[in-house]
Structure formats: C-alpha cells, structure tokens
C-alpha cells in the first residue's frame, strides 16, 4: 500500500489539490458566500505596492514634466481639471435645481435637498483575468467605503464597490457582465435595467417593444436600485431595435469613454431630478425675399388646374349672377343660391384675383331687397354664330 502511494504520490497530490479547490468553489457558489480572508491578503499585499509604484511613477514623470518641460503648466492643468470637474457637478446640480424650480411644485424638496456625500479616490489597478472588468481604488473601509456603494465621475457612473478592504476597494465596472443598475431615459422616461456586456458597451434590458427610445437619447440613473441616487448620467443610446419580446438597447457608458483615473464613491446618495430633455434647435435655411417690392402687387395665376380652383371659379360666377358680394351679408338680404344653373354664355372673368368693386351692379342699400325682373324676357340674339361677346342678361333664378 505504501509503495502504491509512493508510486502515485504526484498524481495523488494533484487530485487532493484539485479536490480542495473544487470544495472551495462549491462552498462559494452554492452558499453564495465569499472567502474574504484570502482576498484581503492578496489585495493588502498587492495594492500598497501598486500605490507605491503609481506614486513613484507619477512623482518621477511629474518631476520631469514639471521642472524640465512644462514647469507650472502641469499643476495648473491639474488644478483646472479639478475645477472643471467640480463645476460640472455644480452645473448639473444647478440645472436640476432650475428644472425643479420651473415646475414650482418642488420648492419644498429644493430646500430640503442636499448634494450627495462623496469621497474621492484614485484607480490604482485593474483586476486579473480578461473576462471581468474590475478595478482597484485606493480608498477602503478606513475611509468609510462599504460594499455596494456606487462609484461615479462627473461624466457618469463608473461601477459599484464589490468589496471594501481596509486600504483599498474592488470596483465592478459598468461594462462587467455581472453589473446591473436601474436607469431611466431622459426624453421618454422609459425605465430599464443597465447591464454590462463584457466589452465597451452596455445594454438596457426589460424595455417593452411598445415603449419609445430614440437613438442618441441619454439615460440617467433611476434610483430604483438604492445604489445610485436618481439623476446621475449613464450614457447615450448607440443602437436600438425591437427584439423578440423586449427592445435591444445598447448604451455607451459616458464615464468610461476616457479611462477615468479619479473617481468619487457615493457615501450617502441624494436623489436629483432627471434634467428635462431639450430638443436640439433645428436650423432651417430661409432665403432672402427675391422681390420685396412685388410683394404687394397681386399675383397672376395661370389656367385653372385643381378642383379647388374650379369650384372657386364656379362660386365666383354664381356670385356675379346673383349680384352677391362675398363677405357682405346685410341683415334681411336674400341668401345666395348656389344651386342655380350657370349661364354658359356668361363671360368668364379673367384669371386672377377679382376686385369686387370693379363693375357689376350697384351695391344695394342695407335692407333693400332686389327682385329679379321676370317680366322682361331676354331678347333672342339673331342667330349668332358665336356667343355674344358682351355680358348676357342674367337668367332669372328659379326659386
């Protein structure tokens, strides 16, 4: 037996080591538990060295850049970046305040609201393994960071704290397949769940096909997940199309477009209103008036083309036959009859706008009733070859 064990010593050791790790895996996966001790050891061993290396690197490169090439420009640039980041946050907050004030109903919340409490941190390392998107920041439990807290930049959300160690924290990025956060669209207020895909983009799930999401529309945190307060930018929609049951919406996370170096951990989140959508102003070309002097002169029209033109022409002729002036309808006057048969020999007025005062019978006095002359029959024309050029006598309107 001893010989057998000695003979297969290597293989036995391999089986034992593999079995131990399988038990460890099963303990974590089945019980959904973690083994923090090993992770604390590893992170505590690695992150101080990474921080030290980063300090040395930034110190050396900063020294050369500051004193040999750029001198004060670098520190000024850094100061301006910090100032810009602060102003961005302030601007976002003021926009929200303005939006709330315009609605005039949230004055109470305006006064009660206070900005979220955050702590600044620096990214000092990335996670091992190509599939997961994890970074380490140089703030841990000693600085008040706890597991589950949101990590943001002024541009948008970065991820959430996966584990907080004494001197460092592990942050799961929004692009990791295991990441999820509640989001809401800015324009149509569509709610969904943001999920990472393992590469540069994210997807918004659980949005029905019937709901409307536009390309380029911006998503904000909805505050539903109790990790991120409402109103923090997430990213813009880069692709959207209907799926089998829900929409497939892809979002480019705004905070990761430029690899962030400094981040903020939200210690106490305060909800903000999602800014109102403002449609971009469309520029429409308006050419100059080609002939401003001719604007007052009546325009001449061509031959009658449309049915509307023909109907209008018909009503004009009826009006002339009935001696009716459109727009003038004195009380007691007889209403116009549009059912009379038009005299085909009546002259057609020249195309163009008709001047009502030009020619025609005299304007009746208000209250005067004009009776058609039924006793006087029209004189028959002596067999004209062509219709008479002059105005024909109006036929009596059959009443």
């Amino acid at each position, binding site marked *: 037996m001893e010989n057998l064990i000695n003979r297969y010593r290597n293989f036995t*050791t391999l089986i034992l080591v*593999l079995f131990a*790790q399988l038990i460890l895996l099963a303990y974590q996966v089945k019980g959904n538990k973690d083994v923090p001790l090993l992770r604390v050891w590893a992170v505590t061993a*690695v992150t101080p060295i990474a921080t030290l290396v980063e300090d040395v690197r930034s110190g050396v490169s900063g020294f050369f850049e500051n004193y040999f090439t750029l001198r004060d420009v670098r520190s000024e640039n850094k100061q301006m970046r910090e100032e810009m980041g602060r102003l961005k946050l302030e601007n976002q907050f003021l926009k929200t305040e303005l939006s709330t004030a315009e609605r005039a109903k949230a004055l109470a919340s305006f006064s009660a609201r206070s900005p979220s409490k955050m702590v600044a941190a620096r990214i000092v390392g*990335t996670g091992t393994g190509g599939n997961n998107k994890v970074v380490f920041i140089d703030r841990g439990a000693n600085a008040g960071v706890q597991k589950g807290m949101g990590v943001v930049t002024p541009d948008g959300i970065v991820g959430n704290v996966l584990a907080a160690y004494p001197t460092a924290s592990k942050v799961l990025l929004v692009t990791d397949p295991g990441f999820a956060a509640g989001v809401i669209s800015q324009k149509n207020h569509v709610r969904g769940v943001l999920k990472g895909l393992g590469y540069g983009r994210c997807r918004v799930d659980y949005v029905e096909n019937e709901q409307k999401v536009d390309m380029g529309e911006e998503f904000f945190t909805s505050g539903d997940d109790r990790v991120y307060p409402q109103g923090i930018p997430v990213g813009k929609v880069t692709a959207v199309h209907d799926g089998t049951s829900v929409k497939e919406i892809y979002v480019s996370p705004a905070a990761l477009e430029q690899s962030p170096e400094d981040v903020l951990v939200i210690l106490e989140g305060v909800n903000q209103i999602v800014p109102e959508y403002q449609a971009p102003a469309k520029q429409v070309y308006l050419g100059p008036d080609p002939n401003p002097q001719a604007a007052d002169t009546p325009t001449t029209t061509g031959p009658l083309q449309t049915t509307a033109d023909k109907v209008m022409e018909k009503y004009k002729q009826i009006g002339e036959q009935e001696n009716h002036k459109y727009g003038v309808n004195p009380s007691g006057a007889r209403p116009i009859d549009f059912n009379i048969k038009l005299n085909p020999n009546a002259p057609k007025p020249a195309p163009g706008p008709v001047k009502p005062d030009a020619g025609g019978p005299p304007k009746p006095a208000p209250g005067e009733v004009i009776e058609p002359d039924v006793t006087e029959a029209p004189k028959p024309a002596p067999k004209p070859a062509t219709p008479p050029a002059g105005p024909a006598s109006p036929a009596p309107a059959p009443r």
Partner: protein
Amino acid sequence: MSYASDRELAVDRTARSSRFKPWAFFAIPILAILFQVYVPLFLPFLSYLELPLMVVIYFALMRRSQVRGLFIGALVGLAQDSLSNNPLGMFGICNTLVGYFAASFGLKIDVEQPFVRLLMTFLLFFFQKFLYWVLTRALLAQPSLFDWRETAILAALNSVVGVFLYHFLDRLREDR
C-alpha cells in the same frame, strides 16, 4: 513503466532540475501579478499578456517536479482569483493543471530549446483558456463564448513574449 524505471527517472530529474535563488519563487510571481494589475491601466493592449501563467509554466518546466509545479500553479492561480471577480479556485484549478502538465513535459523533453518553450507555452495557454471556459460554463453556469481563433492568436503572442521572458528568467538560475 516499472517502479524501478520511475526511480531512475526521479534520480535523473533531480540531476537535471534547475535551481533558483529562493527569493525568485516569491518575487517573480508577485511581479507578474503586479504587472497584470497595474500596467494595463496605462497600456491597455498589454492586458492580453498572461505573465502569471508564463511564470507558472516556466518554473514548472524548469523545476521538473510535478508536485512543485502544481503547487506553484495553485498559489499563483488563487492569487489571481483573489484579485479578480471570480470565485476562488477558478484560476487555481486551471493553473494547478497547467503546472502539473508543464512539469510532466519537463521530465520527458528538453525544455532548454526556445522552440520547445514556444510550443509548450502555446499549448498550455490554449489549454488554460479552454479549461477556464469549461469551468465557467460547467461550475458557474455562466454563458460565455470560446473564440478559438482569438485564443490561438493570443496564445501565439504570449508564446513569443514568453520565450524572451524565459530567456531573462534563465539568468536567475543558480545552476548556470
């Protein structure tokens, strides 16, 4: 193979195994892990380099001891798991098997040749990625894709880098 031939092999293995300065066994893996943690922050394309895996392969090949190889692999793998989002043991199991197999190959073939090292790194890199994919699907039930073309390209790149790295690590050997 008889028991006697195993003993002969063990004696021969002890004679041929390389010796390293003790600090190298700790410092080199830590440096490799630090490289993987820190450098991709500034040079993202270097995140495809699996220096910890190369270090495991190198020490296992050169020590020519299956037990030492698998322990080196297990420790480096667990350290990688600790710094990743994986449950502990995923990289540990993969690297344990890589270390064991690398040491087994090291017992049978001459691993001083650069071409042999290149081929070994290529095969073991591919094996580690494939095994990791299998474990992810089988043990964690996570849907993931195995792109064998991309893995082959990465394996080739890592093999080339590995040959140069091994040449550098050879300088730390005491038997040279």
